[in-house]
């Protein structure tokens, strides 16, 4: 099955059936860089011979990562989907289907910081409107799906990201920033603009999703054993 490479008979549409004009610049080529290549080997080793197409989603993430490294914008141009299809010997359309199905794959360029703001009910009740407003103000955009003029931010409205305990929250690239309000959002974005990477997680005095203001139970001295009888372990990562 070698004939899947696209015959370049693109764009002979009759009037009214013309291809949609692309609203953004598609690069003309894409090749995996050394770092991605190393990663591809690791990913494809997980699948039995002949089932490499299963690796399509990890590879699309890989493309996004490489695009972020190379251009500062984590998105998947069409030529990259073709490259993935070639690598996995699957028809390009099957890659297009996957890439367009999942919202986690950006098929349009995004800003250096992709701000995915949750506006589902718990976050909304806890003030996601303020977060949105702050993002729009700092980024200088008027609506979702828009990229800021300086290319720093793209705002995307997303449904629940599963961090309701720390609502309202948003995801900046791969990291969750939680317990936001208007001010902390503004500070966060300003810091990002300056090129800093503020610590992820809750933006208030709170340990992960532990109660705000410290423990409310198990107030005794932390001994050698915790309440469940196991050696006490304080996770030091999120």
């Amino acid at each position, binding site marked *: 099955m070698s004939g899947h490479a696209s015959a370049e008979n*693109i764009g002979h549409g009759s009037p009214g059936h013309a291809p949609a004009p692309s609203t953004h610049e598609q690069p003309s080529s894409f090749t995996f860089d050394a770092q991605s290549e190393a990663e591809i080997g690791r990913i494809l080793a997980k699948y039995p011979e002949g089932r490499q197409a299963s690796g399509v989603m990890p590879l699309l993430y890989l493309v996004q990562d490489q695009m972020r490294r190379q251009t500062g914008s984590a998105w998947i141009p069409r030529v990259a989907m073709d490259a993935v299809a070639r690598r996995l010997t699957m*028809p390009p359309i099957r890659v297009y289907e996957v890439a367009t199905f999942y919202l986690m794959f950006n098929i349009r360029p995004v800003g250096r910081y992709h701000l995915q703001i949750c506006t589902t009910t718990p976050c909304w009740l806890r003030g996601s409107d303020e977060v949105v407003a702050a993002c729009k103000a700092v980024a200088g955009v008027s609506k979702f799906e828009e990229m800021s003029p300086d290319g720093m931010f793209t705002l995307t409205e997303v449904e629940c990201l599963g961090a309701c305990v720390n609502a309202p929250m948003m995801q900046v690239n791969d990291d969750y920033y939680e317990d936001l309000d208007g001010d902390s959002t503004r500070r966060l974005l300003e810091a990002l603009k300056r090129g800093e990477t503020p610590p992820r997680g809750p933006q208030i005095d709170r340990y992960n999703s532990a109660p705000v203001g410290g423990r409310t139970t198990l107030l005794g001295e932390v001994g050698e054993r915790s309440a469940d009888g196991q050696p006490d372990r304080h996770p030091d990562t999120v």
Partner: protein
Amino acid sequence: MAKVTVDGIQVEVANGSSVLQACEAAGKEIPRFCYHERLSIAGNCRMCLVEIEKAPKPVASCGYPVMDGMVVRTDTEVVRRARRAVMEFLLINHPLDCPICDQGGQCDLQDQAFSYGSDHSRYAESKRAVQDKYLGPLIKTVMTRCIQCTRCVRFASEVAGVPELGATSRGENMEITTYVEKALTSELSGNMIDICPVGALTSKPNAFTARPWELNRTDTIDVLDATGTNIRACARGAEVLSIQPRTNDEVNEEWMSDKGRFSFDGLRRRRLDRPWLRVHGRLQPVSWQDAFVAIARRLEGVRGERIGAIAGDLCDAESMVALKDLMTALGSGNVDCRQDGAQYDTSRREFYTFNTGIAGIEEADALLLVGCNPRHESPVINARIRKRWLAGNFPVGVIASPGPDLTYGVELLGDRPSALTALIEGGAGFTEALKAAKRPMIVVGHAAIAREDGAAVLAAAWALASAVGALTPDWHGFNVLHHAASRVAALDLGFVPRPGSRSVAGMMSGGVDVLWLLGADEIGAGRIGPDTFVIYQGHHGDAGAARADVILPGAAYVEKPGTYVNTEGRVQIAFGAVFPPGEAREDWRILRAFSEVVGHTLPYDDLPAVRRRLAEVNPVFARQGLPRFGASDLSGPAGNPAALGNAAFGNAIHDYYQTNVISRASATMAECSRILVHPVVQAAE
């Protein structure tokens, strides 16, 4: 077998059947959109809901397997309400543009909304709109009408073998698209128009020309390749406005090739609609009588051996038998149908037919293609091979020059006859695959036999078939794939020169004084000697007519009743859908009328008499159907298998869309050729 009760009717269906199939076995109609019996099951339209006893809710019958003792109800209040609800959801985003939709009158959605839907709509909100897609010059899209049954997507990837269509995005935003806005590269793409249950995919060349109820449908046979596809010519008045396949599981299932489907506009262009006579170097319109008299005068005193006749690729058997009888009456044995110079052994029929049968492909378990590109020579047979290949355990070897992707996995064994020798000697690994197979098939194409060593290749292929056990009393694995619709009938009629008579090559360059071309345009008319008097009898002004001294206007295939024999050797009768244009006439009648002028009146006056004559020449023409047969006589065709040449096999077809006078006259085919065969590489977006 499982016993299933459907609405009180007990039926027995095979284990693994779907509930829908059981309902059909019980004679119950189940509405459906996404389900198609020749495609995989998607189960996404939900229209086929039925009630099954002990199931808590209605079940989509297309994807639900039967169980013994199952009790199904297809006409309860629950089912009716479920269907109405599904229909209401489908119609939420379907435009109400039936009056301007080409599918109107042949639309599953329209029919089923009428039969199973609600009588009114409760939906007052905005409908979604989808941008139309570009799928090439044959398929017109109105994607807002799409109900996303994904039949076209499944057809493209399963039957056609060109996975270029898909469903992108999701939910409300889901769209059927190629994503890259390029023409589908399938020779079977027109079938998507047939299987689309709504007006999303309609025929671009037919757009806004006719309503289905205005058309007269006539059963006929496609002659643009040698598959013998069963078709239906749909005509309004004197014009054929569309061509659709008929279902025949033995031949084409329900598919047909794009060339056969969309060449019909070529039937209106470049037509020869009156006799012409060359006077002082210029063709002038004349009456039939004058044309006949001019030919008769020229024939006076010409010895039979100086007269020749060549039959083209689109001829019906009736006209060829009449021409052959006429030539015999004139004392000439110079008749030939092999425009491409192919070498056959006509001593036994099995040397030049597709003996395994098209349906037989599904029983084969190994395949070798020799000088053969079925994708272009017969897209429908190629789809059959792909169907077999998808079923698994089907090694396919190819000895041919590199061509397009055949849509199935192949092992390239070489591009010249030496690869065949290697297989016979058993040196190559593929010999083992053929030997291990219980029912191996070898298909020889015309790129292998239309060459100097053609007879040797044919003999070598037979020798290989014999050596690997492809020739047994109950399995005939030797096949010749034709792409000229008239060829097998011509060979059956002995429309080849007797020993001592002239072949096509012998008739060129002044080999004969008078040459009768019956729709023969592919001989390289420039090779005909300058002093040869050429009579062209045919329907299109192409190469043959340009060279002719007399033009006798004949009828194209949809304009005459005719007998055709497909590559399998299956004799099929076609009916005439419309009348030939102007003064053009059925071809055998022209020959019969002319025979009277030269005083050798042919002994038949009507079609039944010609057909009796056909059966007299070769009894196969009286036979109905084509029983499967094995090989009894293992002696091979004439030709020395050792005399193989060393030249690489070429391609029998260089431009799939431009192989005969009809497709060359078709603007649609010209557009396909321009876009798909000779793509202009445009700057990337």
